[in-house]
């Protein structure tokens, strides 16, 4: 239960190599790198937008994203979706690692960061450049939360993800653990990783799920101000949440420079 107290499993960024705070250069700016970024990939003035939907397992993210995507596409926006462990590079490796028992929390954190970096450079940045709306099912915050509850140093995690781009909008689907438990149980049951069974808090999956998800929810809550989450009450009906999402996305996009391919009043493109 007690984590092994070696000096290597808990990365520290104290001492002279202090990691820069996120947005140290004048606060977090949407569409800019959080930290050091990718020096070899300039991203200024890319027209696309990143909209991230965050929240714990079973909170209804994918349902909301599917509805939001359809609505955006009907309005003529180009939409690209991305989500964790969907990178071509890392997906097989991560699946393999999850099914075996050879990884510790540090290597897990690094594998997930690799997956994110691959998707950032191969999917997200090209889509931003081409003027797409990128809908991200989870963003770096889930990775920060999961690693944070496992005792990985928070300053080190923020430096690690300093290559990430701050989304233009981050929606956080907030739920309480009791509602979450009932929802997960009636949908598909509790899964090993979502229950934090790797943290070895006991053999009872229900107790483990409750305690792990409670910690995760606290971790998300602590990031809300830091990263400017727009908090949505996820206990409401799907449609009510979706209405909220659309209203806020609409307000943001209509004030932005992003273009659609069928703006109202614009003549349709004539076939040549």
């Amino acid at each position, binding site marked *: 239960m007690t984590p092994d107290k*070696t000096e290597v*499993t808990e990365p*520290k960024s104290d001492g002279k190599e202090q990691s820069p705070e996120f947005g140290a250069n004048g606060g977090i700016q949407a569409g800019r790198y959080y930290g050091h970024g990718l020096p070899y990939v300039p991203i200024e003035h890319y027209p696309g937008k990143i909209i991230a939907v965050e929240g714990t397992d079973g909170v209804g993210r994918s349902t909301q994203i599917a509805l939001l995507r359809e609505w955006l596409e009907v309005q003529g926006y180009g939409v690209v979706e991305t989500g964790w462990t969907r990178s071509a590079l890392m997906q097989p490796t991560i699946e393999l690692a999850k099914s075996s028992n050879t990884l510790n929390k540090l290597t897990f954190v690094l*594998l997930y960061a*690799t997956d994110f970096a691959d998707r950032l450079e191969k999917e997200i940045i090209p889509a931003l450049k081409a003027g797409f709306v990128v809908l991200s099912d989870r963003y770096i915050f889930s990775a920060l939360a999961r690693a944070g509850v496992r005792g990985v140093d928070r300053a080190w995690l923020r*430096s690690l993800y*300093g290559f990430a781009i701050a989304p233009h909008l981050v929606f956080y689907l907030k739920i309480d653990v009791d509602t979450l438990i009932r929802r997960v149980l009636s949908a598909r049951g509790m899964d090993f990783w979502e229950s934090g069974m790797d943290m070895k808090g006991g053999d009872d999956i229900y107790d483990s799920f409750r305690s792990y998800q409670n910690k995760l929810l606290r971790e998300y809550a602590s990031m809300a101000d830091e990263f400017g989450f727009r908090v949505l009450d996820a206990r409401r009906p799907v449609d009510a949440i979706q209405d909220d999402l659309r209203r806020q996305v609409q307000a943001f996009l209509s004030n932005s420079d992003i273009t659609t391919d069928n703006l109202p009043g614009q003549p349709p493109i004539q076939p040549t």
Partner: protein
Amino acid sequence: MGKKKNSLTPTTFSLLHATDFADRLLYNIVPPLKAGMIVIADRYAYTAFARDVARGVDRAWVRDLYSFAVRPDLTLYFRVPIDVSLDRLMARRIKLKFYEAGMDMGWSLNAQESFRIFQGKVLEEYDRLVTEFGLSVVNASLAITDQQQIVRNLVSRQLEKPQLEAVNL
């Protein structure tokens, strides 16, 4: 797997190597250190500092990435001019590997030329590391027996120090 498809970016290249390093650190380096043994590592985090920065990764980011590593008690840097290393590789008829030659950077389609450009940047970074981290430089153009004598002297001196103590980077 990623390497074969030539699909790594400088950052995923860096992160995958850090993952591999973290695994080896926890399984192969820390346990013998705890048991009071001597660990000889063929390359360490400094390789990443030089190689990844030569690829364009941020210098401070990669140092912070590896801040979970144990700082070595002694680091030997075998310094050799590019021509010598290239000659040695050619003499052994070793085909230059894609990433080793920095072919992923697209600086040259010719492997030797690419190697020369890439390794030039790597060596510049190593020179920076020598002062930043106090690496002990061994002139790798010398005869092997001479180099080995220097290495043994450096190691002996290190072992005579009162206590072996692992310190975080």
